[in-house]
């Protein structure tokens, strides 16, 4: 509830009162008030102890007040595929899901492989309502052959490089990417899939793919690439490897090996991989088709353990909108991917917190300081004084039903339509501005 002395929405200052602040990076998990001023965090104080005045107040009683959520992996489809999503619609969905920052994947049309395209993504005309951090292509046209100009891309605002959707298979190209990334302190994000053995595959290889007569992607197709990449990251000093949407138990083993060896290896996990199984594909439901595919129960079990024990650095949605006609086709021909921005928090609370007893503070970490560290998003991921005034306020007990038709995304390809979930975003504040709910 917003009570304003003056009704100006772009208030220079906002006091968030009565909430319970969880800020893992600052080690805060207590009732606190937060004063935002001029786009920054001005004060974090015990209840009723803020000193400065505020133009507006937000009553956060009964809610958790957290640093703004960061999604390391979204597809906003611009340039070139605005029938699926636009930066405006995708960031509106992000705000509704509690995300104040999203990192966009470069597999658009054309591929974001130049500094001009990186700059284009960040222009105000795109209509973004949350912070957009572009990830640029690692190789020209994401063809996996010659590296892009990492330095120019970084100067233009790219926070990492990747050929997402495709892996960098060639050992020498991957080695070169990690080396150049190391020089620039730029993470290389890998979509780990040995596409030499997953051709024509449309789901995980296992009893369900056999039953449905679909060609299956073996778990080893992911693990073998992660294994190689971790070995390279261990060899190349200061290189930074980030494993996108990790989905298998064996890939986690490789990440653990890298982390134990103090290599700069990080990884993210999606809500659908900690929630669903390959058997949920049922009778060819294309809203359960994504890449990496839904995996076996033992893979999901390993992921849940890794989310709890700190091996996983971030929850990322891999929000991948597609138009209805791209999904309402034969399973083998359907596009890979599902939307995810608006269900991520609720799935984390429903599945990780309530079902698997992972503390809320750990979940908040996976959405905030965890991802902020992966891509060095300075001034974000924590509510320490002076940081950006990005805040996510949510009610961890609120029960609600997700209705895909009401999604802010242009697309409806979600497996969670009609799901009863617990935990709902109350407000999303970006740079001190109330962004969700909108007027």
């Amino acid at each position, binding site marked *: 509830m917003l009570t304003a002395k003056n009704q100006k929405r772009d208030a220079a200052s906002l006091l968030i009162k009565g909430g319970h602040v969880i800020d893992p990076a600052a080690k805060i998990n207590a009732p606190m008030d937060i004063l935002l001023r001029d786009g920054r965090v001005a004060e974090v104080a015990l209840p009723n102890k803020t000193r400065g005045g505020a133009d507006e107040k937000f009553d956060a009683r009964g809610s958790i007040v957290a640093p703004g959520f960061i999604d390391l992996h979204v597809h906003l489809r611009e340039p070139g595929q605005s029938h699926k999503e636009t930066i405006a619609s995708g960031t509106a969905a992000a705000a509704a899901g509690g995300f104040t920052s999203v990192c966009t994947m470069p597999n658009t049309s054309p591929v974001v492989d130049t500094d001009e395209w990186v700059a284009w993504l960040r222009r105000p005309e795109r209509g973004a309502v949350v912070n957009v951090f572009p990830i640029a292509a690692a190789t020209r046209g994401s063809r996996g052959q010659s590296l892009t100009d990492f330095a120019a891309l970084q100067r233009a605002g790219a926070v990492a490089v990747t050929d997402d959707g495709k892996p960098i298979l060639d050992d020498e190209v991957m080695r070169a990417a990690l080396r150049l990334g190391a020089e620039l302190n730029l993470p290389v994000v890998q979509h780990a899939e040995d596409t030499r053995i997953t051709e024509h595959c449309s789901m995980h290889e296992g009893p369900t793919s056999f039953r449905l007569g*679909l060609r299956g992607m073996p778990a080893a197709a992911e693990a073998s690439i992660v294994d190689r990449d971790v070995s390279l990251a261990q060899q190349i000093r200061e290189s930074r490897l980030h494993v996108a949407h990790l989905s298998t138990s064996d890939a986690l083993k490789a990440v653990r090996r890298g982390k134990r060896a103090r290599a700069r290896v990080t990884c993210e996990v999606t809500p659908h991989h900690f929630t669903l199984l390959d058997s949920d594909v049922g009778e*060819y439901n294309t809203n359960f088709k994504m890449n990496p595919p839904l995996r076996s129960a033992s893979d999901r079990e390993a992921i849940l353990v890794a989310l709890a024990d700190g091996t996983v650095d971030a929850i990322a949605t891999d929000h991948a909108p597609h138009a209805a006609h791209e999904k309402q086709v034969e399973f*083998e021909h359907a596009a890979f991917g599902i939307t995810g921005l608006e269900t991520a928090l609720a799935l984390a609370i429903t599945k990780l917190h309530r079902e698997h007893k992972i503390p809320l503070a750990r979940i908040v970490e996976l959405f905030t300081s965890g991802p902020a560290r992966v891509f060095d998003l300075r001034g974000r991921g924590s509510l320490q004084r002076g940081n950006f005034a990005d805040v996510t306020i949510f009610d961890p007990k609120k029960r609600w039903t997700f209705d895909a038709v009401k999604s802010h995304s242009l697309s409806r390809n979600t497996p969670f339509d009609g799901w009863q979930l617990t935990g709902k975003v109350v407000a999303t504040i970006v740079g001190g501005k109330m962004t969700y709910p909108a007027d």
Partner: protein
Amino acid sequence: MNKPVRGSLLGIEHLEQNEILGLLKLARRMNPQKPRPLLRNKRVVLLFYEASTRTRSSFEIAAKSLGATTTLVQSSGSSVEKGESLIDTGYTLRAVGADVIVIRHPSAGAPELMAKHLDIPVINAGDGMHEHPSQALLDTFTILKHKKTLKGLQLAIIGDIVHSRVARSACHLLTKFGVKITLCGPPEFVPEVAATLAPGLRISRHPEEALRGVDVIMLLRVQKERLAGQKIGLQEYIAHYQMSPARLKLARRDAIVMHPGPIIRGLELTSEVADGAQSVIVDEVRNGVPVRMAILARAVGKAK
């Protein structure tokens, strides 16, 4: 998206025992020589995205002998070539007056997709590597002409199981009735995961072991191109797995030999076996007509 219309036949996996028994009973009452006009004024569309001889002709003859008119639509020479989606093709065929669509498609799940969007029954005439329900029904029909009951029968399926919709449908159907099935072939054709398809499936790498004492032998076609690049070569496959008179002797004396066709003589079986007294391969084809008459009658006929 809706539930498939009653009378659709998309696969065996989700059929109840009594539905299967009902179809088999109806098939026994169907006489292609003296058919009843159960499908008079009905339009049956045969939508074939893949080559087919026996399934197509058998559905066509079944439909016509029940008094229906049939229309054959093939992917080449139709709007499919122009990029029309499967669902739109379905809407089009419905709009021109189809009462039932019989579909053969290279993609697993295609009949399911069509059925979810149409208000007429859809019959799966084989979808990718998924299911071939009418084949499983006619195979069961054929077995029951030679064996009193299914319960307790021992059956060996030998060949390329992983790529076979016939094998999947047969496993679903026969295990529902207590048939004990051994899947036999090299790991390339019979991966360990195959045993998870239905309860009580066994895997064997040796025909000598799989065949001992069986009542029914079901052979599957082996496509030479699928042996390319595999560990097991063509000559090795023939040496290990080809059904020969000597191997046939390992089965029960009254065992029958089945094959969904097309058979490749000299590869998965010898001519002596194909043409021998125990072979029911031609009977299977013959039995396809009354079984498909029953499937169509159940889908759109007056008598159900």
